[in-house]
């Protein structure tokens, strides 16, 4: 495992990270249900995930899990038990045949930024026994511009931060503050300047993983599903050979590729939302109870060390 104890030079990293990480690093593959997206040369292609694919496991390096939009506190018709489905998602993480190195939560941890909702989410996350990295969603920064969230989930950072693991450079960005009327997600000049300097000097061969809440491309303008100054961030990322952008916010899996940059939005663990433009508004999608768990889920991301590919597997809770 020594190949993967590359946790070095954390930048602006949340407190209490990193000390026990090496012990958690394992090699291997998780082959669950769903679709495996491989990213090679910037072009993702899907391959079926049958037993035959398990042979590919040996080639894979380390993995991490993305959970998103747990909305702890949501109790409306679309899912009266968002806490229960979040716990189920974490149970899925615990059952992975290969233990992931860590988890990321891409925001809307809570539904209403309430302390008890943050508490519940944090306790359930801890059940996985993994380090976790967080970025806030707009539901996590209500009323206090995120102070309680940052104090709990990304202490001693500016909210945004970066770290390295397994040769991959991870960057957490915050795009849910300073919303303007009629506007979109927003990174802001200070964060963009930080990102520019954070990436400077890194070899273009370094695989980059960006994670944030709102998509960094314009998924659907009418519903505000985009980030107004994301193009500036992308301009810093263009020179890198492998960039993966992971986000939440829209409660469904959508992918897009621009050059060497792959964008990937995750399932929610709480409730699905309609596909862009298929409903009068982006409110919670009510489906038959039996179908709900096919629309909630987690994402597992594997690094293939030989060619620096990232393979993302989205798995619904009922898989």
């Amino acid at each position: 495992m020594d190949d993967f104890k590359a946790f070095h030079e954390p930048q602006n990293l949340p407190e209490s990270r990193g000390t026990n990480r090496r012990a958690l690093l394992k090699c291997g593959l998780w082959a669950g249900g769903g679709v495996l997206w491989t990213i090679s040369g910037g072009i993702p292609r899907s391959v079926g995930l049958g037993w035959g694919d398990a042979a590919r496991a040996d080639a894979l390096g380390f993995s991490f899990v993305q959970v998103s939009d747990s909305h702890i506190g949501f109790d409306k018709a679309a899912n009266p038990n968002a806490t229960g489905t979040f716990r189920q998602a974490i149970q899925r993480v615990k059952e992975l045949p290969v233990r992931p190195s860590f988890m990321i939560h891409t925001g809307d941890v809570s539904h209403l930024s309430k302390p008890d909702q943050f508490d519940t989410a944090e306790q359930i996350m801890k059940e996985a026994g993994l380090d976790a990295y967080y970025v806030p969603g707009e539901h996590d920064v209500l009323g206090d511009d995120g102070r309680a969230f940052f104090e709990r989930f990304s202490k001693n950072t500016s909210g945004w931060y970066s770290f390295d693991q397994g040769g991959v450079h991870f960057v957490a960005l915050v795009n849910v503050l300073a919303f303007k009327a009629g506007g979109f997600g927003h990174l802001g000049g200070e964060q963009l300047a930080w990102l520019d300097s954070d990436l400077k000097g890194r070899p273009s061969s370094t695989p980059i993983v960006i994670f944030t809440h709102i998509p960094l491309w314009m998924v659907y303008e009418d519903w505000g599903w985009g980030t107004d100054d994301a193009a500036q961030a992308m301009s810093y990322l263009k020179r890198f050979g492998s960039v993966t952008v992971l986000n939440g916010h829209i409660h469904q899996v959508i992918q897009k590729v621009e050059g060497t940059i792959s964008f990937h939005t995750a399932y929610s663990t709480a409730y699905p939302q309609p596909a862009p433009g298929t409903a009068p508004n982006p409110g919670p999608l009510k489906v038959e109870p039996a179908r709900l768990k096919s629309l909630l889920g987690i994402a597992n991301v594997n690094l293939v060390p030989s060619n620096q590919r990232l393979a993302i597997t989205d798995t619904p809770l009922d898989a």
Partner: protein
Amino acid sequence: MPYPKRAGFTCPQVGLLAAAFVGLFLSAGLAQADMSHDMEMPASKYENVQVASAPDEVMIDNFSFSPISLTVAPGTKVTWTNHDDVPHTVVSSDDPHAFKSPPLDTDDSFSIVFSKPGVYKYFCSVHPMMVGTVVVRGQ
């Protein structure tokens, strides 16, 4: 979240947070406490309001403010009520925000009294595509 004294309104009220807000506003010399909270009111009230479209009420429904522009006389208390199953807010569009509601969960209400004539643009800070206007016209 202190409220600027220059704004032409006098009092936000939301039952869930009323206690904290009352303290804040009394100390700022701005408050008249009104502990009303629409969760305690009969559902039929909403139906009546929606049909009658009361002149001082804004419905939040289907991710929009209705009416999108409301005109009232100075001194009118305007009340927003959220009928969606996700939270919304009512936040002044100017910077710094002249007024800002707490998150309004389903059936929560928020009121402010507009004392000075003017055009008050606002939006939902959770879903910034949602915008509305209150026009306060002198008599």
